[in-house]
């Protein structure tokens, strides 16, 4: 099993329901052939650097997955047949590439948590001061 990353462009006029259907189709194709999906992320609707099939915009979808190398050539052929997918690129990645992303996310989460804690402490202080005031009255 090796790690791969696929970035593909879906037809720009597709609304959310049809878009998720296309993504689910791709995910199913991977899992049915002995692969496992690590994560899926949408890069959103972007302007293309050049026209593809006369479209100026496209929905970018990024999927990290694990699969046997033999499956990839078949997967590429299958992707070419799909008319909703305008362009695609499959890249081998290393484990450390994924780990780096996780680390960044963890750091961000920690920041958020620490902010929350600070807010709670401030609230406590306010409560205490309010109680003291009442006692003084």
């Amino acid at each position, binding site marked *: 099993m090796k790690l791969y990353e696929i*970035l593909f462009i879906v037809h720009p006029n597709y609304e959310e329901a049809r878009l998720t259907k296309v993504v689910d189709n791709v995910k199913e194709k991977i899992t049915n052939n002995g692969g496992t999906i690590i994560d899926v992320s949408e890069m959103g609707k972007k302007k293309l*650097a*050049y026209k593809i099939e006369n479209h100026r915009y496209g929905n970018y979808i990024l999927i990290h997955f694990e699969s046997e190398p033999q499956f990839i050539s078949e997967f590429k052929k299958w992707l070419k047949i799909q008319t909703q997918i305008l*362009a695609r690129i499959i*890249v081998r990645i290393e484990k450390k590439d994924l780990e*780096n992303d996780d680390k960044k996310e963890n750091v961000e989460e920690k920041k958020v948590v620490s902010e929350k804690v600070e807010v709670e402490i401030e609230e406590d202080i306010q409560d205490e001061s309010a109680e003291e005031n009442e006692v003084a009255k």
Partner: protein
Amino acid sequence: MAFINKRKMCKFCEEKDIKIDYKEYNNLKKFLNSQGKIIPRRVTGLCTKHQKRLVRAVKRARNIALLPYSYNLEN
């Protein structure tokens, strides 16, 4: 241009946090000229390792329409 000093050290060797990734195409734009061509190593001042990675990233980004093959065709 930012690459006047020839003796400058490779930018990616100096700042190791910057990843060369084809998905972060805005970082790669600095290494293209107005036509969209890749600027050569003697001008960018990058080391062999990082220039090679940069070239690979730019070519991948072009393939998936994040960067143009040429700015002239568009207009």
